[in-house]
């Protein structure tokens, strides 16, 4: 019952930092054995020769939109997209309707995920009630209900005083604060990065300073309170520098970067394709280079998508009117492999680390490794497999993805959650 | 395009224009109320030459204008790209004048139709007459020339090419055939 042998693969061990030729045997949803030439009776054998066998990938920044915005995405469709993209776990942001600022919503999400989700769903609770930045949410209750972190993602905590209180309180609960850093008064009305391209396109700009001011503030507050701080979707060179300095000082700060921020620049906005409208905005080539350097030297710990689906009707409007966000679950791994691993920015092990153990540590979840006895979440990656991005074939509901038409190389061919195959690329494998 | 025949040389053109000048003066009993308007492009030098002949004969000069009929064409929607529009320069009032329109070739009559509309938009002439160096037939509208240099029967496959010193640096009229 439920016995699976992955044969002939190269196993990536992000903890040991090595790749070894080994078979992986799974039984009862757990990793039972990892070793050479395993022979097991009465088991399903999947030939994964030539492929990379990695711990199941974790996307710690996803908008599943349920409850409240089911037209954009649901837990069922969002986790289907995750499975197809090679992710076995996602952490979903609390900016739903109602906001996940109370145990009931967290419970609802978990229950839904239990019945309809294809992958593990770890809800993130709100920092403040309704994410209004005024009163603290019941953090301990959120934790008890299953929240793995706290964030007011999408609505930066504007007041320094409330953020300080939030960190003091969150530290007590043991939850990490995930901060969407953007000073609202500097970003107000902006539709894209402020620079040459915003000047030429005539769109109101969001200066890099809008992000950096708050990154600096939150680092100072984390240092003062001792609360673990995770900076979401870092987008500027200045933020990378601030985080690097803070880490060197020993501040408990971690950070993530999205595939779109380390691949695209604000030049992608030319033509006013609203799929390029994201928050924080696409920045300059200099910022992209800084993000890559930050990923390479470990300043940026995590790669997360900020998967943000919207309906075509919402996106098919004037650029300034369009909502921010792009879907990323089904293109993330391909972008990591094509844009970071292939050019040598990250080794396969380092790339996998940023998609597995590192986010697992930030969230404090027992995932991200292939140690004997752990839940068998596994992603099999074919580093040679190529495909052209076609949003019309996405499993998720969102079509807002500016990589349409681009060829990506290095894709998931098998996604296994607790020993169960939830995505199989089939003949291409 | 293959050259089929030369139907006029420098002398032929000169003689035809001189004759037309005489006919214009005779028909209008002098040059009193007369004005010439050349249709771009090759009607323009022809009108200037006619005015010069008339001045030589009568000793009085007639005003000369230039008409660009691009904006009056009836085939704009079928062209791949809009043709270049040039200036219309008619530096005299046309109202109550006898206007002699001058063009190099009269063929379907559509250019003349457009030119008539263009002149009407400038005012109300007493009379409009038409002079053409070559009449090659195949009219599609009830229009005829009052003064013709030479009648040349042609087929629709053929092209009549008037080459003038001012524009083409040579002086002759050719019949070409599409290959």
């Amino acid at each position: 019952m439920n016995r699976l042998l992955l044969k002939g693969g190269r196993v990536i061990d992000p903890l040991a930092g090595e790749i070894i030729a080994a078979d992986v045997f799974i039984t009862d949803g757990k990793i039972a054995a990892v070793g050479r030439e395993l022979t097991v009776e009465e088991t399903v054998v999947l030939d994964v020769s030539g492929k990379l066998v990695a711990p199941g990938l974790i996307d710690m920044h996803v908008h599943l939109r349920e409850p409240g915005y089911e037209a954009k995405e649901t837990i069922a469709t969002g986790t289907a997209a995750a499975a197809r993209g090679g992710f076995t776990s996602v952490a979903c942001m609390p900016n739903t309707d109602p906001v996940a600022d109370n145990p009931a919503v967290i419970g609802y999400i978990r229950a839904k995920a239990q019945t309809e989700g294809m992958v593990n769903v770890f809800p993130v609770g709100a920092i403040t009630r309704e994410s209004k930045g005024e009163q603290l949410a019941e953090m301990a209750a959120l934790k008890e209900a299953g929240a793995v972190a706290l964030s007011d993602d999408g609505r930066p905590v504007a007041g320094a005083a409330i953020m300080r209180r939030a960190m003091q309180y969150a530290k007590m609960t043991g939850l990490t604060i995930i901060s969407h850093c953007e000073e609202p008064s500097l970003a107000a009305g902006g539709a894209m990065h402020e620079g040459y391209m915003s000047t030429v396109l005539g769109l109101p700009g969001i200066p890099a300073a809008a992000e950096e001011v708050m990154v600096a503030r939150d680092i100072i507050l984390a240092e003062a309170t001792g609360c673990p701080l995770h900076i979401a979707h870092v987008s500027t060179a200045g933020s990378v520098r601030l985080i690097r300095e803070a880490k060197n000082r020993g501040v408990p700060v971690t950070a993530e970067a999205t595939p779109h921020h380390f691949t695209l620049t604000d030049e992608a906005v030319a033509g006013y394709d609203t799929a390029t409208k994201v928050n924080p905005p696409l920045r300059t080539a200099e910022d992209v280079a800084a993000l890559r350097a930050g990923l390479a030297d470990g300043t940026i710990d995590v790669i997360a998508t900020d998967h943000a689906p919207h309906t075509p009707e919402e996106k098919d409007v004037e650029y300034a009117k369009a909502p921010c966000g792009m879907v990323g679950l089904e293109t993330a791994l391909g972008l990591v492999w094509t844009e970071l691993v292939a050019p040598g920015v990250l080794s396969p092990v380092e790339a996998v680390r940023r998609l597995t153990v590192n986010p697992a540590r930030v969230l404090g979840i027992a995932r991200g490794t292939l140690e004997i006895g752990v839940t068998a979440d596994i992603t099999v990656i074919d580093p040679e497999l190529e495909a052209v991005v076609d949003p019309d074939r996405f499993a998720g509901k969102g079509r807002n993805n500016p990589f349409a038409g681009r060829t990506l190389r290095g894709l998931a061919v098998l996604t296994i959650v607790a020993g169960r195959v939830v995505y199989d690329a089939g003949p291409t494998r | 395009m293959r050259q089929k025949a030369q139907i006029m040389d420098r002398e032929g053109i000169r003689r035809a224009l001189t004759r037309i000048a005489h006919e214009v003066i005779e028909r209008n009993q002098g040059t009193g109320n007369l004005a010439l308007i050349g249709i771009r492009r090759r009607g323009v030098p022809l009108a200037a030459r006619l005015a010069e002949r008339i001045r030589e004969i009568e000793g009085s000069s007639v005003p000369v204008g230039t008409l660009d009929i691009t904006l009056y064409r009836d085939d704009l929607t079928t062209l791949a790209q809009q043709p270049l529009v040039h200036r219309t320069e008619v530096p005299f009032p046309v109202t109550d004048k006898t206007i002699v329109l001058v063009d190099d070739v009269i063929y379907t009559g559509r250019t003349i139709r457009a030119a008539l509309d263009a002149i009407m938009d400038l005012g109300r002439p007493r009379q409009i007459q038409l002079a053409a160096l070559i009449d090659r037939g195949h009219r599609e509208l009830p229009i005829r020339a009052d003064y013709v240099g030479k009648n040349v029967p042609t087929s629709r496959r053929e092209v009549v090419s008037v080459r003038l010193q001012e524009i083409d640096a040579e002086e002759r009229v050719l019949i070409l055939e599409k290959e």
Partner: protein
Amino acid sequence: MKKDLLGLQQMTAPEIARILDTAVPMKEITGRQIKKVPTLRGRTVVNVFYEPSTRTRTSFELAAKYLSADTVSISASASSVVKGESLKDTARTICAMGADVVVLRHPMAGAAEMLARTVPAAVINAGDGAHEHPSQALLDLFTVREKTGRLDGLTVAVIGDILHSRVARSDIWGFTTMGATVRLCGPATMIPPGIEATGAAVCRNMEQALDGADVVIMLRIQLERQQQGLFPGVREYARLFGLDEKRLALARPGALVMHPGPVNRGVEISPAVADGVQSMINEQVTNGVAVRMAILYLLSGGGKNE
């Protein structure tokens, strides 16, 4: 010509020259007693204005009428635009009407480009947010070329709120493409980042910007920018960036003074300069019709309606 006129950034010098050349005979028509030619008979030009603009709208309307096109105007106050009808819906309506040319004014950058992707009709951008206002820049180019006989080698100073000005952007592209040098000057809060990369030079003060300039283009200062904290007040603005006769004397003798209108007299430009002999403000309006006739004519070609 391409299907649409969305901006001058993507246009080449020959393409711009073709519009200016075509505007010359069009101007002759606007001077006639009977200001009408049958060129666009049976064509429909729809003016869609999401922002009030008497000047640009009437200019396009007259241009269309002189060319015998049928014109319809949809303006924000009079149509479903205010009822929250989206640009997309408006586009569908326009298609259903069978418009050949759509003239669009919209407060958001990129709106014209979005419409152009949606409708088969030719789209003319009559101003989209702070992006471009190509017909205004083309009439500026036409006016300067008509008066000075050339564009190549001229020095053009553009003064004022560059940040929010679509006219400034289109003028920068237009003049630099045609070989002129563009200088910019305005409050530091209204100089957009990276603007030097367009080829225009940013000057520290009016004196530097005007020194020997052949053309001075003054931009309208929107008084609500003061509330947004972009400049401290009208008095200081006029003192630092207003064009009076004394400052104008720094420019080349006989330099042309232009303004896209409507003018804040006494703020960005003194009444004496606005009404002086060097002022081209009225010529700009006249030439606007001729230039827009040229644009309508050139965009209406191509048998695409058959």
